[in-house]
């Protein structure tokens, strides 16, 4: 009886069903621990939201179901873990998710119906640079390196907004083979961010620009020049602004030997590593771990909380989900008709990949720690919105590919009215 059902169930529906089951069980479990009615309500609400988010949205516009399912899985994981840490976090993350979905739909429609951004390119670039530089002028410093600005009681991080702008601008420029202006724009962005001490975001911008540059030109020389230029800039920075530089270098020291200062600089890294090892391969169990000990457990080190409670195997699976999202992005890029769309989609995938690499790498002591949010999972309004916008852009390109394919099919069969 159930076997028959499974055969008719398309893998897309089965996937969504599994995700729904996962969160139903997870929230029920949490509910048993906390004995709060909100948990049980969430156990019903979250799976329904996932169903809507994955399947319902496709009714609104031709969306990529697989991508949506995976992204919803990660977002819901964020809500789950944040709720377990502190219920307020979970609620605010759910709100962020809602805003993010709206932003995603907006971006998708934008990319789907706007064929190119040639005219808007220059204004976008200028606006981007202005937004990036804004924290230097009217900024509010949070957590030592964060660059936030506050507008009328509502604070956000402009660098997250400019991420999306930068992707579009770079893709436009590189599609027309204007390599030098593109790399110049990227370099200026990276410099501004570095001056603001936001090295994590600077690294993400840099990585994405390098990847896009290589994709557009195919020359490793460009990548080498970029890396060399970055090294030269770091050297120049160490000579021009020695105290700022030494502040940044203290992070490198903490990375090299955190046990030299286990209660001070190395505390975050050590607690994260200890949490990971405490989890073991299968984790200590949802709700059992001691994740609140880690500083920044709600954004930077949230991956460590997940690995602590769900286990290292589960952590690897989450990494695999990110890999699948990136591969999907690359597939969408390969199926694109124009250079612009191909570069745009691959830029999105690259940005997600680099950001994930930088934040998880910092957590497991592969590279020095930086204050970056883990895409889709970390608490943070602007971060969630920008990541969802990136996914929206990917979906826009995918929708455009589908439309192009339809157009080509009509062209071939009838030789008839082109679009």
């Amino acid at each position, binding site marked *: 009886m159930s076997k028959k059902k499974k055969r008719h169930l398309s893998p897309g529906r089965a996937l969504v069903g599994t995700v729904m089951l996962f969160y139903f069980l997870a929230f029920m479990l949490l509910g048993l621990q906390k004995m709060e009615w909100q948990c049980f309500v969430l156990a019903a609400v979250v799976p329904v939201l996932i169903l809507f988010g994955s399947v319902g949205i496709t009714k609104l516009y031709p969306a990529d179901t697989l991508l949506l399912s995976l992204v919803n899985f990660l977002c819901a994981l964020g809500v789950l873990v944040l709720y377990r840490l502190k219920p307020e976090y979970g609620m605010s993350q759910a709100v962020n998710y809602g805003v993010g979905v709206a932003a995603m739909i907006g971006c998708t429609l934008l990319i789907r119906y706007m064929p190119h951004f040639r005219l808007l390119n220059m204004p976008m670039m200028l606006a981007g640079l202005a937004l990036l530089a804004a924290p230097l002028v009217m900024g509010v410093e949070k957590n030592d390196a964060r660059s936030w600005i506050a507008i009328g009681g509502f604070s956000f991080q402009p660098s997250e907004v400019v991420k999306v702008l930068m992707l579009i601008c770079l893709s436009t420029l590189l599609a027309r083979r204007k390599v030098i202006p593109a790399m110049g724009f990227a370099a200026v962005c990276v410099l501004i961010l570095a001056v603001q001490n936001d090295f994590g975001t600077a690294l993400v911008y840099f990585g994405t620009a390098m990847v896009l540059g290589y994709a557009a030109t195919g020359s490793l020389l460009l990548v080498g020049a970029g890396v060399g230029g970055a090294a030269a800039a770091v050297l120049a920075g160490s000579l021009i602004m020695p105290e700022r530089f030494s502040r940044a270098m203290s992070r490198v020291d903490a990375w090299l030997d955190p046990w030299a200062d286990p209660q001070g600089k190395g505390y975050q890294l050590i607690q994260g590593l200890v949490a990971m090892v*405490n989890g073991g391969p299968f984790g200590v169990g949802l709700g059992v771990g001691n994740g609140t000990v880690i500083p920044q457990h709600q954004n930077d080190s949230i991956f460590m909380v997940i690995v602590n409670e769900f286990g290292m195997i589960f952590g690897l699976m989450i*990494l695999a989900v990110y*890999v699948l999202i990136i591969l999907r992005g*690359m597939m969408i890029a*390969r199926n694109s008709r124009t250079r612009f769309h191909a570069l745009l989609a*691959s830029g999105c995938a690259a940005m997600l*990949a680099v950001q994930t690499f930088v934040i998880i790498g910092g957590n497991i002591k592969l590279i020095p720690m930086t204050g970056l949010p883990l895409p889709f999972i970390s608490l943070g309004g602007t971060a969630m919105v920008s990541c969802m916008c990136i996914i929206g852009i990917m979906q826009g390109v995918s929708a455009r590919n589908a439309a192009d394919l339809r157009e080509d099919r009509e062209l071939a069969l009838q030789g008839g009215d082109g679009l």
Partner: protein
Amino acid sequence: MKQLRNNLRRVGVFLCIMLAVLAAYGAYSVIVNGNRWFSSASNTFMSRKKKEVIPGQILDRNGMVLAFNDASRPDQDGMPKRVYHPNPAVRMAMVHAVGDDKNRVDKGVESFMTASLYGFDMSMAERLSCFMQGKKRVGDDVHLTLDAALSAYATSLFPADKKGALVVMNYKTGEVLTEISLPQFDPEGFASETAAQNRAVRVMYAPGSTFKIITTASALENDEGVAERAYQCTGVLQVGDGTRNVTDAGNAVHGQLTLQRAFQVSCNNTFARVALNLGDEKLKKTAERFGFNDNFLFRTLVVENSSYPSENRTETEIAWTGVGQSELLVTPMHMCLVASAVANEGVMMEPYAVARTVAHNGDTRSVTQPRVYRRAMETDTAARLKEYMRLVVTGGTGTAANIPGVRVCGKTGSAQLDTQENTNAWFVGFMDDPAHPYAIAIVVEDAGGGGSVAAPIARQVFEWMLQNGY
């Protein structure tokens, strides 16, 4: 577009590899360092666990209980108190190896084997059955390779008020039989900071003339005719700018001698010359083959890394390195490993202190198997060095270690320190007998000559071992 598609394919592969590297590095660092991080003092996840589980016992190789929880003496939380061996001499001798419940000793067995002691390796079935029966869970018992009686006896041999360390190993398997450090403290009492340090594995010393084992090994392997060459010891060897010329202990002049004779009498002149002939690079390579500059990641033991200096390698420094001074830093455990390598035909076995862990219900949960750490030198080099070390004990500086009828081999050392009036007395050696495969390393701080202070201790330890069935 075709080129773009090709590039995109490569980019896709690169991004996937980038994330795969993440996974691989994470897995690797957890496998290698996992236990260390778990047992570190910063692990606050354990504090809650410790209230729920009764830790297992720690026993020595003969089954003597060194640490257990006494239900008849509950502490303030109502949990059974952690109690150590009733004999104060025994528990003080074992305190550095076993550790204590207040975490004063860093990386003793109490903290390093926390996972086993607190039952983290218990299977789901065991946990369920404990839960069902309503009993508190009890962790695994840890059986050590160390011998408590030997440790207590060895402690009594040290001169009063002198600091130092002593390590005895089985060079065929790598089992550590005793690892004591002086000064000691009572785990049930107060500990000063110096007393809490484990000098056997965590404190660095200059090896002194015991390093000549490595210099000789380097010379035998790199220099063809070195064994037959004749050296001339004039008492003073001019090196560098003459501010620190190489002299011998007591300003002795040995005249003409071979390498073997020089080893026997521990002639600094000769070994300085040998080191200069070899050159820093070859000597460093041999030292690294012996484990210098390596990151010791032994399974059940945390040993501080030994270092061979890499800066400021002037002629003077190289000469004094050959003699065992300069900036060389070593732990007594490592010197014991060096002696073991000579005894074991050039193969250094990995030292381990935990023999096995046994669950509360009697099942053996894990057994530590002997493992080769590295090959330090060729078999024929080891055979020659063994002969040289035998001659030290029969007719050289180490005659105080000789036991009639037993092939004791060794090397003495007297490391000079500017901050001390007397030298650190060193002795490393072994019994060359397949039935009694034991190696020893002793250092007594600020005590005098190795041959006069450390060698007799070695002799007494070996005698005790032979008498007690080892």
